[in-house]
């Protein structure tokens, strides 16, 4: 792989939690792998406690690696704080973690168009931003939305706060916000995003995850067989170590991914 189009690289990363009294091993031990840009859906799999979430937390910078180097788009970010790690977006198992509960939907979505760093004098919500959001959202509404209809009626829920929605609806809004992000996220991290969803909500969310994976790399920690089957790559962890990292040639998405 040419290192210039390498999006994420883990070079001998070890990590441990400060208050880990459960066992002596590191949460991650000597993990090395890399992903190219626009790699599509990448499943991060393995049994509970194998370090899937830890990998995501090391990428966002919530957890500092105790050893090794992590690069994002060729830049060494091992010691950079989260807000300096540009081009990342996250979707969580607990959907509300992906939004600000104290802000309206409109404000949450507008934040995705803010670019880098807030201004002291620019208003966040402007008519221009809102109409652009609504316009682009209309183009993005997945087919499966017919059943829930939340995204097609986005205009009506703009002034609500996330706590007024169900978990599935919040997850839809989160994924929509990642799709709307400007400049677009280069790496989307998702931690079991479909785990708590019913069939209708899950269908919408899967559609949006697949839409995302067409242009970006979506690293998704999951046990969801359907998602794993559709992945272009699979990264498997076992007890904090990399067990397997391979492309899945028969995946429908891997053709465009390389």
């Amino acid at each position: 792989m040419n290192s210039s189009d390498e999006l994420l690289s883990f070079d001998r990363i070890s990590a441990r939690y400060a208050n880990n009294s459960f066992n002596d091993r590191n949460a991650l031990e000597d993990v090395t792998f890399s992903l190219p840009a626009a790699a599509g859906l990448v499943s991060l799999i393995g049994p509970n406690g194998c370090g899937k979430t830890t990998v995501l937390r090391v990428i966002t910078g919530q957890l500092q690696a105790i050893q090794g180097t992590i690069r994002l788009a060729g830049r060494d970010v091992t010691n950079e704080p989260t807000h300096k790690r540009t081009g990342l977006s996250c979707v969580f198992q607990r959907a509300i973690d992906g939004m600000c509960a104290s802000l309206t939907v409109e404000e949450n979505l507008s934040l995705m168009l803010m670019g880098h760093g807030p201004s002291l004098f620019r208003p966040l919500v402007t008519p221009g931003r809102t109409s652009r959001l609504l316009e682009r959202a209309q183009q993005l509404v997945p087919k499966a939305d017919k059943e829930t209809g939340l995204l097609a009626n986005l205009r009506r829920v703009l002034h609500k706060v996330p706590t007024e929605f169900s978990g599935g609806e919040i997850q839809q809004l989160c994924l929509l916000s990642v799709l709307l992000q400007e400049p677009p996220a280069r790496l989307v991290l998702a931690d079991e995003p479909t785990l708590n969803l019913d069939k209708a909500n899950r269908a919408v969310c899967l559609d949006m995850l697949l839409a995302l994976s067409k242009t970006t790399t979506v690293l998704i920690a999951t046990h969801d067989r359907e998602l794993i089957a559709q992945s272009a790559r699979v990264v498997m962890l076992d007890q904090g170590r990399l067990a397997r990292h391979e492309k899945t040639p028969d995946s429908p998405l891997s053709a465009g991914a390389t």
Partner: protein
Amino acid sequence: MDVLYTTLTFADNILVQALLAFPLLLSMVLSYRCLQVPDVTMDGSSILAASVCVVLMRKMGVDLPLALAAAVAAGFVAGLLTGALVELFKINSLLAGILNAFVFYSLGLLLLGAALDFQTGTTLFSWLKEKDQLFSQGLPNRLVIHPYVLGFLLGIAIVLKVAVDWFLRREWGVVLRGSGSNELFLQLRGVNTKLVRILGFGLANALVGFGATLISMYDGSVQIMRWPGTIIFALSVAIVGWEAARQLGRKFRFPLADSSAIILGSILYYFIVRMCYTFNVPTALPRLLIALYIVLVLAERKGAWRRTRELFR
């Protein structure tokens, strides 16, 4: 006519008190609502700011605008220190506030030379009160109102409310409001949330500094014993206001309505206090009644009755 005079005097009194406390109380929007921290620092930063202002004016002969600016700056720095303790040292926000309340209480007392009651000397309020006195001389005996003081305080309240509302709609302000609920989300948007929050603590306490100085000037002196417990007063007024605004319906929502709810709460608070005073209720009772009122309102909304019944099933 007597009833009208009494009512007008009564309303004037409540409004003066409510508007006078407004700048101080407005800091609750920034601390309790945006940062989601009941910032105990204000117990100390209020004294510090008021002391800085009077000491500069009385002992060093500094002009009022400059002394006031220094007081606001002192409050701002006090808040930054609490912010640093919370965000960098990761000290529990209540503990950080309590520690700094001690620190700034001591500093304020040192500045005042351990005087319990430090006269502010002539201020803008002296002039305003004089004008009001002249104005009242032309009125019937039972009618005592203060249009000059009231107009001045109303002007300040409007300017501050508009400024805070304006700020909370800027990108920076929205980020401050969001930082209380999801820092990671904002950090992924490239926001340095720790810095935003530390500055947020600073801004909240700058407002406290301004408010405390204003109150001290109105009183004509910095009274040390007045300030400990400010957070309890501010929090209860703010909650009375927010709960009252909630009754008024969904239109009254964050952030614009929150600053308005503060003035509503302030008026309600002083209304209760004044009523107690008028009907010769012992002076200790108003706070008790307000606490009861808050508990009853919250009990209704949070479903306390149902849970109490379930406890005995």
